[in-house]
């Protein structure tokens, strides 16, 4: 019981009427309540301040960058060499590096993650699911720098023995390991979506003679589709922004190619590479990481908004 109500129970000798005391207390409590609500609102609003900070910094630093580099060069030049004596500022090689590593990661994570989700939700006995799900989720608890090590020193040599002529640094290796890392993002969220499909839908399918797999693929999966797409989109935005695995295993040379067997730099790897060096604050090289970051932010923003849309749609259905 709170202090306020104790005071009311005891009654206050100095106040003639107990009702008056309660009324005064009430007014004080009202102010206190409103003050607390305001503090809590400020805490929630701080997240908007973070976004404002992100957009503000990226746009401000990029604007000085784009004062030097014409937008048309930025989007059409095929070379990205901002630290050379004769710098070229074409973002395309970094974008292809990002797209190729993300593509490889999705080719691993989406099929495997979806099958795992269907298996855990529709086939596995409850005890198996209860044990396997947390273990799989540990995959996303491993720090990405450790995955980088794993890619460079374990998966890389295996791939090199399978594919002759594969260089030490290549996008295939980084993409595969990144795909393994994001399996739980796909499997856990898709499984949640599949499990929230009402049992009656499955029972209707069974009553028509469908077996489990047909029910899962033709009834449950489509019914959960918007939730599942949301999980795919989360995986995409995770892969686009992943940094350490590609910085360690894909090489750091910007390379305009769609061949995953080649080394290349992603947007994130470039930012890390520049940050490791000692660039003076305000130089064009320093500003170039903000311009690259702005492109990455814009791309992930599109996917995040799509993800929010699909999640909301899924919540409305069930």
């Amino acid at each position, binding site marked *: 019981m709170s202090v306020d109500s104790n005071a009311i129970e005891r009654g206050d000798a100095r106040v003639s009427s107990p009702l008056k005391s309660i009324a005064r207390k009430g007014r004080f409590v009202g102010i206190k309540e409103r003050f607390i609500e305001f503090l809590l609102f400020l805490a929630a609003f701080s997240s908007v301040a973070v976004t404002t900070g992100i957009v503000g910094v990226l746009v401000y630093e990029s604007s000085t960058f784009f004062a030097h580099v014409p937008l048309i060069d930025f989007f059409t030049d095929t070379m990205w060499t901002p630290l050379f004596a004769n710098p070229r500022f074409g973002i395309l090689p970094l974008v292809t590096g990002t797209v190729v590593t993300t593509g490889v990661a999705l080719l691993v994570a989406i099929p495997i993650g979806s099958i795992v989700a269907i298996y855990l939700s529709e086939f596995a006995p409850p005890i198996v699911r209860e044990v396997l799900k947390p*273990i799989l989720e540990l995959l996303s608890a491993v720090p990405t720098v450790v995955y980088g090590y794993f890619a460079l020193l374990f998966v890389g040599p295996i791939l090199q023995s399978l594919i002759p002529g594969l260089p030490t640094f290549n996008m295939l290796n980084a993409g595969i390991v990144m795909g393994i890392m994001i399996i739980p993002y796909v499997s856990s969220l898709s499984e949640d979506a599949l499990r929230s499909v009402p049992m009656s839908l499955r029972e209707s399918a069974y009553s028509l003679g469908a077996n489990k797999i047909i029910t899962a693929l033709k009834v449950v999966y489509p019914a959960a589709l918007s939730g599942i797409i949301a999980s795919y989109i989360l995986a995409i935005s995770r892969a686009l922004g992943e940094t350490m695995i590609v910085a360690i295993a894909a090489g750091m040379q910007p390379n305009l190619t769609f061949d995953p067997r080649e080394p290349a730099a992603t947007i994130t790897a470039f930012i890390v590479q520049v940050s490791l060096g000692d660039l003076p604050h305000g130089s064009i090289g320093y500003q170039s990481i903000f311009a690259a970051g702005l492109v990455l932010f814009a791309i*992930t923003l599109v996917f995040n908004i799509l993800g929010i849309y699909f999640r909301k749609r899924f919540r409305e259905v069930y």
Partner: protein
Amino acid sequence: MDMTDFGPIIKKRKRQDALFNIVGIACTLVGIVALGALLADMLADGLSRLDPQFFLSFPSRFAARAGILSSWVGSLMIIAVTAAMAVPLGVAAGVYLEEYASKNWVNTIIETNIANLAGVPSIIYGLMALGLLVYGLGLGQSVLTGGVTLAFLILPIVIVATREALRTIPQGIREAAYAVGSTKWQVTRYHLLPYSTGGILTGVIIALSRALGETAPLITIGALTFIAFLPPSPVSTEFPFLSFEWIWSPFSVLPIQMFNWVSRPDQDFIVNAAGAGLALITMTLSLNAVAIVIRYRMRRSIKW
């Protein structure tokens, strides 16, 4: 149609189910085997390096003499700052959005914004901190900057965990408390927060374990890779006994130390990297194990 015709069809359907069962188990194993291979690989490479000397030495040009003292101390300091900022802020924001917020456009913006922040790549937070905290506010490449950066990064995770924990509390609890004259804050303070502590704690632990493994944003703000001294101690023998000088100190963290060693061609440093990786992975996996245990016990003990 004759009834006997169904035999082969049923058999075929059952075979399909059995086949998918195998495919499903195989795919689940892919992830588990990869996790096992990763752990085994790190153990094989780095276990020999894990002696007290490794934890008590500064980095060095000589692989055999190099250790992770400054980086694990740095990781602990960063996590302390991150937790001190992200936990109160995230829980307060979660309480506001779940219990107080009415449906208006301001709150819709806040909610959409948090959902978006959760998907912003970590390195972008690093760029924001570089422009705003390091140069804009002049905080420098300090423990404070690093901790605040990671606090921003994990804020959405703490908020979402708080909201989910609050959502599992039945409406009847709130109504019962209101019925005996509680105010909104009293309901929150004496009922909702105590009952959701387990869920919030689980989310906070998972968020902190994520912060512990983060590398990219700290590299971006310019954390050093080579630090051969410890920051000023937080406790001293002289008045006032507590000092916060350490938040202004430059720092390195375990993942950055590991990254630095991985990128060297020398095999001896690779062994050091595996050692640092083992220390790091032990910390993050045990934090996650604690979170799983809390979640499991909570599910068994709470019956509304």
